[in-house]
């Protein structure tokens, strides 16, 4: 080696060639593997779906012909209108209810707050079909309080809106709760000091402070409702919406091309709402970083009682919905023989795949929780903590966020096109449990990813630098430090995945096979076949399982916190 040779790079200004360590290669390898997974599990299927919309049945490119057909079919066009009507009504009502409920929880001194919060979250444990079925028992022709509808029918827009409200209430309420918890007490003190009335304070401090929460809740509600098909499937009657149209086109008519077109139409509002929400979220984060003082409510008898009354009513309705489904599932022959029995739990005599469906669902949920948590957490870790490789990490970040913008129905349909394509080497996955796991992990990837990222961001960014300086490979630090510190978040992610895998219908309804029928789909199919009570029974099995897992999760979190998180205490 000569002196001139070693000097050459510096003098000629050649960029330094970074030596990529073995560890970096491992990191990049895993990152690429997960990125590849997401490419296969969302990007390519969506591409196939999109291209299908521009093809005829034989796969010839036809340009916009399918879209022209769609928009010239009045029935399908009305579905857009119907979907918007349902969605806007639901969003409007849910926002008011959720706002008031969250207001009661954060701004009043009423008793039983944590109980009410727990009750408000109950609908998360149900497939959206279940509140709809329960409404049939309340307001159907043989319902217990049918007359309360003043002669209107539950099958139609009224029923759909009622069902959707219950389905999305916990989601909207959670967002409101977070937004309210963030507000700054100092603003209220200032307002009080300036002699503003309660009402004026509400309009000048409370509402403006909540605007991002409100907007975010609106978008979340909007997306959930416009893409949900459980409720309109049960309560739609002759009232068609976009989500049921996709199902009808694909399952009912096996017209995949038209299904692709409808789902692309469905994708538009979902994607728009997604981006709008991201925008708003970013602003909200900016607000959060200011040093706010949390608001502590003062007792006020009249107000507290009013809030207790309201939250009590909402809580009662949610419990009534659940209780009715529970009761109806044991009734022998509604409404003529109200003796109780387990007849409706003999799933093997019905459509939907019998008890096997239930166990398949548990299998799916367990796999989704285990595989999903491992993959999502490692993926988030690598996106956050790996060195260099900027392009790969940015691409990965995009892939991780993308699933949130894709409604389940669209994802499921896209899977048919992609995995059932005769030339796809991955075709062997079609109609298997793994494809259901892949689909479900992908469907719920984003929220779990963001949870992991939040937990990882709270860790010192220099852990990896320190480890490198100590010559400890990243995976050892990951195992010895990162994972133990993030145990609470990891448990949250796995529970989120488990519960959603139990309750989801939208994507998997296109993908199950005779060997892999699922409980949530069985609810749908049993209801379809007129077996309403068994559908309620299967729905209850899902709720009980999800609630059980939630309980185990909270016990586990508590005991793990005691054992492994001792270091958090001072």
């Amino acid at each position, binding site marked *: 080696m000569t*002196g001139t040779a*070693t*000097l050459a*790079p*510096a*003098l000629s*200004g*050649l*960029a*330094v*060639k*970074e*030596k*990529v*360590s073995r*560890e*970096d290669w491992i990191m990049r390898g895993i990152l690429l593997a997960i990125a590849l997974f997401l490419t296969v599990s969302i990007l390519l299927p969506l591409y196939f779906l999109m291209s299908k919309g521009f093809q005829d049945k034989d796969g010839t490119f036809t340009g916009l012909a399918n879209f022209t057909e769609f928009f010239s079919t009045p029935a399908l066009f009305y579905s857009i209108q119907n979907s918007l009507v349902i969605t806007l009504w639901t969003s409007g009502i849910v926002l008011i209810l959720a706002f008031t409920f969250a207001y009661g929880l954060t701004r009043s001194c009423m008793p039983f707050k944590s109980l009410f919060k727990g009750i408000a979250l109950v609908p998360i444990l149900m497939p959206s079909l279940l509140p709809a079925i329960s409404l049939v028992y309340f307001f159907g022709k043989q319902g217990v309080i049918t007359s309360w509808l003043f002669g209107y029918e539950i099958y139609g827009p009224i029923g759909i809106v009622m069902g959707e409200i219950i389905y999305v209430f916990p989601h909207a309420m959670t967002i409101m709760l977070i937004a309210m918890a963030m507000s700054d007490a100092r603003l209220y003190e200032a307002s009080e000091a300036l002699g503003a009335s309660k009402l004026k304070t509400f309009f000048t401090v409370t509402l403006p402070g909540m605007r991002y929460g409100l907007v975010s809740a609106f978008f979340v509600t909007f997306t959930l409702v416009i893409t949900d098909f459980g409720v309109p499937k049960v309560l739609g009657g002759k009232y068609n919406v976009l989500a049921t149209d996709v199902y009808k086109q694909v399952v009912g008519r096996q017209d995949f091309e038209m299904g692709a077109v409808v789902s692309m139409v469905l994708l538009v509002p979902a994607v728009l709402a997604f981006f709008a929400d991201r925008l708003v979220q970013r602003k909200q984060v900016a607000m959060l970083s200011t040093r706010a003082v949390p608001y502590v409510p003062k007792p006020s008898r009249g107000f507290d009682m009013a809030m207790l009354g309201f939250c009590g009513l909402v809580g009662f309705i949610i419990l009534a919905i659940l209780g009715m489904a529970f009761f109806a599932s044991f009734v022998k022959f509604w409404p003529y023989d109200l003796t109780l029995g387990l007849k409706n739990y003999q799933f093997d005599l019905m459509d939907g795949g019998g008890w096997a469906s239930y166990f398949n669902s548990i299998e799916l949920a367990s796999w989704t929780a285990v595989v999903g948590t491992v993959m999502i957490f490692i993926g988030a870790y690598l996106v956050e903590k790996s*060195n260099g490789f900027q392009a790969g990490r940015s691409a990965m970040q995009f892939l991780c966020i993308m699933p949130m913008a894709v409604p389940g129905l669209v994802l499921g349909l896209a899977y048919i096109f992609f995995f059932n394509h005769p030339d796809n080497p991955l075709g062997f996955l079609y109609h298997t449990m793994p494809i259901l796991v892949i689909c479900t992990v992908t469907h719920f990837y984003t929220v779990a990813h963001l949870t992991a990222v939040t937990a990882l961001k709270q860790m*010192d960014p*220099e*852990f990896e*630098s*320190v*480890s*490198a*300086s*100590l*010559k*400890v*490979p990243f995976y*050892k*630090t990951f195992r*010895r*430090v990162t994972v*133990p*510190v993030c145990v609470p978040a990891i448990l949250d992610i796995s529970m989120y995945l488990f519960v959603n895998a139990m309750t989801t219908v939208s994507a998997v309804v296109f993908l199950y096979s005779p060997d892999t029928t699922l409980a949530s789909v069985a609810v749908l199919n049993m209801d379809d076949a007129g077996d309403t009570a068994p559908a309620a029974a299967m729905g209850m099995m899902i709720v009980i399982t999800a609630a059980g897992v939630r309980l185990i999760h909270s016990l586990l979190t508590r005991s793990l916190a005691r054992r*492994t*998180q*001792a*270091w*958090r*205490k*001072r």
Partner: protein
Amino acid sequence: MADNGAYLKVENLTKKFGDFTALKNISLEVFEGEFVCFLGPSGCGKTTLLRAIAGLDIQTFGRIEQAGRDISGLPPSERDFGIVFQSYALFPNLTVNRNVAYGLENRKTPKPEIAAKVTELLLLVGMPEQGDKYPAQLSGGQQQRVALARALATSPGLLLLDEPLSALDAKVRARLRHEIKDLQLKLGVTTIMVTHDQEEALTMADRIVVMNEGVIEQVGTPEDIYSRPKSPFVADFVGTMNFLAGTANGKGRVKLDGIELAANGNTDDGGAAPGEAITICIRPEDVVTRGVTRDTDNAVPAVVDNLEFLGSFYRISLHTQGPDRTGFRADFSINLMRDLDISEGRDVVVSFPADLIRIYGEAFIHSDETV
């Protein structure tokens, strides 16, 4: 290349973040056993340089050599250094013992040996018997000691300290300064510390590297940097300095508000011709008044504007009595103030000792009150 015995050689280092150039063609040598401080305001590139040396953010161009080995492109894991961060970056779920042992455990060192080493290190940093605590149970100063012990555990050839004391309160900081310095002397480990605190740099470093906007302004001993700042920036950043507008007046002579002053040696006026604008610098503590009369060399008659009590001394604002009324500051001890009965509005005569005056060529725009 001739080997001049430098332990760490940085040659023509440039680091770009997109369009922004954080380091511009930096060259530097650090000798074995030396304690070097990178000093500069935030954003000057000192941390970037440290991270380049560690391999955490590898430079865009340029070469780094450590102990005769080209490490320019190597990942951190293939370099030889220990590092301590401002945030300590202690692993929160591991006890102090496990934290310190972290690097050793990976080297398949036998367990008893690890235990012995950990005990020794904790003793060394003044934290015996604290090994079973978790980081959250320690104070900031204690955590920093643990971080130091952890960085030293693997006996690295180079110790890198990234603003290690910035998060601590003043008293702890002052104590730790000495402890770290003593430890470094005892172990003889080559050390680079990044800091924005001049006092820290002056008390701890063998040599200081003053940086500004991605370039090195001056490298030298604390004494050098303080007394012979090579640029107005260094003069301004380290210590307090009067920057006074004057004119050149032939070799070794300048004019301030009509008064001719002698300026020995420390001239960097770029050969300004007589009458050209220059900047005359004098530190407030170098301004003399006891026993000064109008006949003293470099005597400057002035008027007292303002007194500022700073505990052990007064900082006095004055202005010259000529037409320019050039303002400057002087630090006078308490007993001097008492003896001479200096108060606002009084006329005083001060002297700028000729060998303590520094002349810079450009008209330096002085931002009042530096850090």
